[in-house]
């Protein structure tokens, strides 16, 4: 196909022509597949799950190596400034202890109030615990690969959290691994509220590891640097009171925040069932695919 004519050989000319047709056929097939993945992405669930099962465990094995190397490097770094760090940590520790006392008192009061109201405590059980073993590299989308799959009971549309905060939600599952849409992806919209004051906000990813937060009601910009955003439980997918992000920069009508659970550093991620399963069935029927 490189030159216009490979010489006088009829056979070579035909070969060239048919390979030309084959490429055009490839483009047509590709466009068809692409259209299908735009309108009906769930068609690919099986084949994508199989691919995840092949690549996921590989990444998981290699992850051990890379986290060991990273641990050695950061471990050495921690010794650098040890005296200063020690003083700072002591201060933080004292402040933390006071806060814990306060929080314990609040929990106790809360329990009493709930008992008075006769509210049943909603059981929030864990589906599976896995590790983040990889991520999407080269695209505007932010996905992570989780080391547990449908064998462990993971299903699409389940929220994923880490001890530090919300990670995202499952979008595809293989038997051994699953793909998680991170909260920093543009298509991830999490209803939340400000920890300070409780104003409802919307947290939408920016595709570059940060999150856009906007207040639901128009008015004065309610954010301050250092504010913590937590989930509100609205919509029924994500459980309430899970920390999402910390505000780092204000802009015109909202702020830019950084996720509290950094997917590169969390040691394990917890998959939970959807907070209110009935709501997530609706969400699944009109969900945007990956």
């Amino acid at each position, binding site marked *: *196909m*490189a*030159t*216009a004519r490979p010489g006088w050989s009829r056979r070579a000319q035909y070969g060239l022509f048919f*390979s*030309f047709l*084959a*490429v*055009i*056929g*490839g*483009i047509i*097939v*590709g*466009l*068809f*597949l*692409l*259209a*299908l*993945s*735009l309108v009906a992405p769930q068609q690919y669930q099986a*084949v*994508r799950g199989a*691919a995840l099962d092949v*690549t*996921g465990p*590989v*990444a*998981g094995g*290699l992850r051990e*190596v*890379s*986290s060991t190397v990273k641990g050695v490097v950061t471990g050495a770094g921690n010794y650098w400034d040890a005296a200063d760090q020690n003083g700072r940590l002591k201060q933080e520790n004292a402040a933390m202890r006071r806060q814990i006392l306060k929080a314990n008192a609040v929990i106790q009061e809360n329990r009493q109030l709930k008992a008075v109201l006769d509210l049943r405590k909603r059981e929030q059980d864990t589906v599976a615990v896995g590790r*983040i*073993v*990889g*991520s*999407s*590299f*080269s*695209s*505007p*989308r*932010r*996905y*992570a690969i989780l080391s547990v799959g449908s064998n462990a009971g993971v299903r699409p549309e389940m929220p994923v959290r880490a001890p530090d905060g919300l990670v995202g939600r499952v979008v595809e599952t293989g038997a051994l691994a699953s*793909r998680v849409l991170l909260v920093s*992806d*543009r*298509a991830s919209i999490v209803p939340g509220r400000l920890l300070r004051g409780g104003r409802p906000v919307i947290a939408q990813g*920016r*595709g*570059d*590891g940060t999150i856009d937060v906007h207040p639901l009601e128009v008015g004065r910009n309610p954010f301050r640097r250092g504010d913590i955003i937590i989930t509100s439980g609205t919509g029924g997918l994500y459980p309430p009171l899970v920390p999402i992000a910390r505000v780092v920069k204000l802009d015109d009508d909202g702020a830019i925040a950084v996720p509290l659970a*950094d*997917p*590169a550093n969390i040691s394990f991620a917890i998959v939970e069932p959807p907070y209110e399963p009935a709501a997530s069935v609706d969400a699944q029927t009109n969900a*945007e695919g*990956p």
Partner: protein
Amino acid sequence: MVRAALATKRRIGRGPTPFAAYLPAASVVAASLLAALPIVATNGWFPNFGFLVLLGWRLLRSDPWPPWWAAPMGFLNDLITGMPIGLSVTLWSATMLALDLIDRRTMWRDYWIEWALAALFIAIDQWSQWRIAAAMGARVPFSAMAPAIAISICMFPVSAWLVSRIDAWRLGR
């Protein structure tokens, strides 16, 4: 410069490696598999490794593989990297076709022209990823793609060099 002048001295008794015809395609799939590395990136600035190697091969030779192989290789890339299925199939086939058409027109080639062509195709690749992501509900400003495009363009010479080394090895030069 005559290419033979650049070759090593030890050439007697060395021929092509047994799977020489399949090595180019295998190297593209291997590059796609880099996406299975356990790196958790918070921004998508890594290059599309499979595409870089594909461009490297296609710009080095006109026939590294039968052109229609681009479609299955793209399908594997889609599966491994988690891109929407069909994106790489379309794009890689279209790249093969476009480069064949370009080959008819260009009278001469040098490294700068190859790099410029690669830059053009990398930009098209990133633009279509961005466009498809927008169609799937993840509309980010296109300026957010600029670092990814710049990094990929800067990475192309590395992949071209690597491909030329693999090519020399597989042909026993």
